């Protein structure tokens, strides 16, 4: 079938504003949308900019906004977004991150927020001779959060950034949960100042947009709420109050 890709383009060297350009491509309904982009790049217009690598939804390179939804081009089949010959598919770069060129966005801020929650196992006990033991049940507590490929779909989909640019965001928070819920980790207190703050978990208002967008099926909103609960229990145990920025 023939479909029309209407792609938002921007070249910082020549453009002051973004513009749309249309391309017609011959594809099969079961092709990936990434395949359609590659056909354009390889055979029609070498100037089109987008990132790609694994082509099967595991590396997080090609998140973009396809017909208004933040998703991976390689995990989107043509038939999911174009129902008939001549259908128009609109493709834009992710939101909330500065566009560097065409569909390529600057992820510096996204990654620096990820780094800020100390996304590594914290445990200063002497290194054991073999493995640290962990039951399958303990392991499953944080299983889905380990799926994150840092694609930033959730970061684009979350409406909180429209009001609060400093929000750590869904990915960083769910990675925070990935560690504090790991029975081997002892870094809850280290991460507390970042998680328990008006820009941390408390900024989340349960819109569930991140959970809907996540291509790896992470229950992000639920993990954020579990983190809130852990913080509340911890503070209560110590007779302290949470730092959600509320003034009363």
């Amino acid at each position, binding site marked *: 079938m023939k479909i029309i890709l209407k792609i938002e383009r921007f070249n910082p060297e020549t453009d002051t504003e973004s513009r749309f350009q249309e391309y017609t491509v011959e594809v099969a309904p*079961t092709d990936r949308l990434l395949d359609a982009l590659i056909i354009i790049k390889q055979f029609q217009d070498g*100037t089109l900019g987008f990132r790609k690598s694994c082509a099967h939804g595991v590396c*997080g*390179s090609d998140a973009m906004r396809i017909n208004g939804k933040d998703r991976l081009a390689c995990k989107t089949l043509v038939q999911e977004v174009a129902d008939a010959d001549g259908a128009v598919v609109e493709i834009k770069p992710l939101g909330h991150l500065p566009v560097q*060129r065409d569909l390529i966005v600057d992820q510096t801020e996204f990654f620096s927020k990820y780094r800020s929650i100390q996304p590594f196992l914290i445990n200063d006990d002497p290194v054991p*001779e073999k*493995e640290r*033991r*962990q*039951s399958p049940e303990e392991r499953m507590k944080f299983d889905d959060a380990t799926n994150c490929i840092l694609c930033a779909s959730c970061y684009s989909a979350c409406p909180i950034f429209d009001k609060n640019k400093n929000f750590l965001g869904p990915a960083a928070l769910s990675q925070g949960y990935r560690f504090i819920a790991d029975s081997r980790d002892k870094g809850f207190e280290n991460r507390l100042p970042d998680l328990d703050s008006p820009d941390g978990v408390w900024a989340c208002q349960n819109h569930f947009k991140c959970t809907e967008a996540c291509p790896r099926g992470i229950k992000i909103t639920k993990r954020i709420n579990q983190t809130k609960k852990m913080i509340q229990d911890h503070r209560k145990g110590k007779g302290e109050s949470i730092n959600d920025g509320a003034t009363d």
Partner: protein
Amino acid sequence: MKHEFECVIVGSGGAGLYSALETSACAKTAVLSKVYPVRSHTGAAQGGISAALGNREEDKPEWHAFDTVKGGDYLVDQQAAMIMAQDAVQAVYDLENRGLPFSRTTDGKIDQRRFGGHTKAFGKGPVRRACYAADRTGHMILQTLYQQCIKNKVTFFDEFQVVDVILDEKTCKGVIAIELATGQLHTFAAKSVLFATGGFGRIFKITSNAFANTGDGPAVLARKGIPLQDMEFFQFHPTGIKGLGILITEAVRGEGGILRNNAGDRFMEQYAPTLLDLAPRDMVSRAIMTEIAAGRGMRGDKKIDDYVNLDATHLAKGVLEAKLPDITEFCKTYLGIDPNETPIPVLPTAHYAMGGIPTDLDGRVVIDGKGTIIEGLYAAGECACVSVHGANRLGTNSLLDLVVFGRRAGIHIGEYVKHIDFPAIPADAAAEAQRWIDRLTDGKTGPHGGHMAEEMQTVMMENVGIYRNEADMALAVEAIRNLRDRYGDVRVQDFSKPFNTDLLELIELKNMLDLALITAASSLNRQESRGGHSRHDFPDRDDANWLKHTLATLDGNQVNLAYKPVDTSIWKPKPRAY
């Protein structure tokens, strides 16, 4: 722009990151990667990492080493395999201690499962040796190592593509890289350079490899006259999704999945009576192609794109969801089927480069059979050839190779840089790279690379694939030479500086053409069948004449071939039956 580091690591997959953890502890280190580190293809590895932990049943490093040697059809250097198998145990515990969330046994240990070619007691039957984290073991390794790099404040240059190396006859002095965001050329002067650029499956049409897997490291070095080892040995993994090449891990068979032909028969009974579906990959891939050629593929039309079924419908309820969740999802997303109910249509897919940059046990690049090294030049991971995989790699041994030899290289570099001064770099170090870029962007009209890439991939797939013969390979050599000539005329369509992916892909195309030529020429010259190199016209292994490693040197459109001995100091080569 100019930079100076004691160690520059090119590539941030498992091999690059593991080395970086070692070197950054004692030397000023920079990690350059053309994709964001977490997007490296190590993240796509699914099934597991092998180590004789013995958590599920008795196992020993010696058995592991033997399986590695036999699986590699005796082209493996045996002391290297022994070291890898021995280091494996501590390497896996170390990953766990650093936070890797392995799947667990009921008593809380690292769980292990079966994988092709891994046996107990020197071939007595399958053994549970593959440590795993569901079917995203590579993802977890990549994430864990990246996280440790964050913890240890390693310096990254994200989205920097290395295009040249600064090298004189005896010493490596740095690299030249393009910064993707600005298009600027950077010169990195360095006391040591480690290449960890991964595989180059993209020279073939159907592959499990990422777009980034274009073999930049080996190609850059080959153009400087460094020989590449055993390039004729490229692994085709038996189970790629038909038409797409997306990998369906061997762990599906490790958990009990069965390959069936159009009569519903478990055809591996005919080819490997003991290990059946868990025979090494080269054998299973050949078995599939033989079934298809005999009209027993699912369509039965004997065409090269016919396929067989991977049947997991009989597995206990919940096994796929719990142990192979990503595979289950790939099937749903790309095939619209539920593997619990419908067998998966599969066909071999170009998967892994056994060959690459020749190194010793410490990652130092060795350029001949006499052990001559280039000072300061190192390689590790899939782009390197130690050689622990010989003519055919066993599943789960690559992730292991990354951590074992990535670590060893990192430790060696840490020591090496202490004793030397920063190199003097010629003022025009970047001139050659600049000339290349200028030529591609000079505004003249020329063919675009897109069609040439496609031609190369088709030529390699059809003529240097699973079964090979003289005429096909000779044709491939000619066709690739021709494409290399035509490359002289290609030009970009994009003249901008920021994120000129058009230019970057044309540079990658050159790398792939160089490696395709070396692969085809090395294959053509080896007149025997061994592991992943299987010829209709020379169907048997020939130890008398060919038990030796190839060293291929690029010289214009010519490939010069030399050979060096294999270390067979532990086990005498025997016929390979399973």
